[in-house]
């Protein structure tokens, strides 16, 4: 049996930051990730992050990832298991992991689940054709795997993911992008939209994809104008020759382990769908089980990192490895940084959603 103070499931931005904070406070940490490399989705973020200096604004996402991985390697309290899957929660202190081709049982005092989120699909005739993929999937292919699976992109969805991946597709040598958005306004930041408009991308609002066809691979798409209820307006269809269709319609938390544990959930559309109930300390409805990052609600890498730090400090305090004053001081600082990231017209929906989840948590 492998015994630690803190088990962290998932080595993306939230898990990495959590491990560092906890490790630096003297906790023994086991950080587990099912992938061959740590970093989660951080290494495909080749654009510069927003925020303030504290949030490492102006730094490209993958460089933040490189720094974090280096710091983890230098911390002796942190054990990193890659290619390892935490597949079973026996109870809140015992977990089973497939590691090095055998099952290991982990005994832990506290847990942070930072398993991230997965892209939503959009169902339309032809959506299963090779060449139709998540926008994040396209981003992984071009930025991490360095392969571009086509030249003419149809991007469905104008949130930040759709806008950013469209730009990065052009950077990876893509020929053209058509971006459609069913609502009558672009969902993501205006500056991201402006960037791609400068390079010939056509952004069409009030429009969606009706169907996609091709012989074994995407060859063309039928687009149509939609009304304010997202219903097709008859007679407005037209065909575009495209060879990739990327779906950017949001993400939802990956919560299987939390289901096994019996955590409570709440439906929260602003954060992706079913979200584990958690309080401002990042603790779920089960004592000692914390969450951080997109699993606590789909947001962004910057909030994931702050939540990871917060969850780690909460676990550290609960294990009496820091004073109350120290914990409160750090908690207030991180909370201020999270509030800054959730401010303004783009953040308010997420802030309100988080506040309502915290309110629900008070009942448990």
């Amino acid at each position, binding site marked *: 049996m492998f015994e630690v103070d803190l088990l962290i499931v998932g080595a993306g931005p939230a898990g990495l930051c959590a491990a560092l904070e906890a490790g630096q406070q003297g906790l023994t940490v086991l950080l587990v990730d099912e992938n061959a490399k740590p970093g989660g989705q951080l290494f495909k973020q080749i654009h510069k992050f*927003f925020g303030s200096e504290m949030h490492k604004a102006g730094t490209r996402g993958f460089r933040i990832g490189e720094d974090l991985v280096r710091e983890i390697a230098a911390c002796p309290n942190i054990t990193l298991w890659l290619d390892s899957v935490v597949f079973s929660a026996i109870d809140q202190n015992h977990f089973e992991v497939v590691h090095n081709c055998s099952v290991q049982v982990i005994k832990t005092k506290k847990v942070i689940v930072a398993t991230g989120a997965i892209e939503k699909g959009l169902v339309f005739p032809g959506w299963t054709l090779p060449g139709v993929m998540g926008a994040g999937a396209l981003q992984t292919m071009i930025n991490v795997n360095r392969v571009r699976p086509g030249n003419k992109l149809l991007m469905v969805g104008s949130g930040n993911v759709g806008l950013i991946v469209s730009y990065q597709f052009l950077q990876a040598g893509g020929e053209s992008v058509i971006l459609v958005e069913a609502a009558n306004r672009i969902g993501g930041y*205006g*500056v991201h939209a402006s960037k791609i408009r400068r390079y010939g991308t056509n952004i069409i609002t009030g429009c969606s994809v009706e169907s996609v066809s091709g012989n074994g691979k995407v060859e063309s798409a039928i687009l149509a104008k939609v009304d304010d209820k997202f219903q097709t307006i008859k007679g407005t269809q037209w065909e575009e020759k495209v060879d990739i269709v990327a779906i950017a319609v949001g993400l939802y938390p990956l919560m299987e382990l939390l289901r096994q544990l019996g955590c409570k959930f709440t439906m929260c559309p602003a954060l992706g769908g079913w979200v584990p109930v958690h309080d401002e300390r990042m603790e779920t409805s089960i004592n000692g089980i914390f969450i951080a990052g997109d699993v606590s609600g789909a947001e962004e890498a910057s909030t994931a990192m702050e939540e990871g730090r917060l969850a780690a400090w909460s676990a550290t305090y609960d294990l009496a490895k820091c004073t109350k004053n120290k914990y409160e001081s750090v908690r207030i600082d991180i909370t201020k940084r999270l509030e800054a990231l959730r401010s303004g017209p783009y953040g308010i929906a997420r802030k309100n959603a988080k506040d309502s989840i915290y309110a629900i948590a008070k009942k448990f």
Partner: protein
Amino acid sequence: MEENLKTCGVISPEEFINCKGWPSDERFLKGPVAILECIEEIPCNPCECSCPKGAIYVGHPITNLPTLDESKCIGCKSCIASCPGLAIFVEDHTFSDKEALVSFPFEFIPFPKKGEKVSAVNRKSEVVCTAVVHDIYCAKSNDSTMIVTLRIDKQYVHQVRSCKMLEA
């Protein structure tokens, strides 16, 4: 449908009225100056930290729109690469009687070369005029954001915001 930043990704003339990063006509006549085309309240302030002359103010909360102090701005272009939204430009109306310089961030390969003739485009990627690449600047601190400066006919200076991507 109304064409503005949120409907088509291009700032409309009406939206520019609220922009606090646009210098006065008098300031343009004095030399190179920055233009901050940032009109949305996004929590973000690397531009403020990047200016060696303290000419950009965001303050708190960091969702404030950046304000340009045109008297302090020397048009040094340090801010261009700092903006994650690639929304900062520098114009120099004093280059000559007929020509102006426009500087912008560029993140595509092949990179333009000094002296090369390129197609200058506006915010909608429409070719406005041909231009000569006056200067290119790559600094390690800019982390792969190249600053390209084009020499163009002065009448187009407020329109040109990039050049067409070059053939490989």
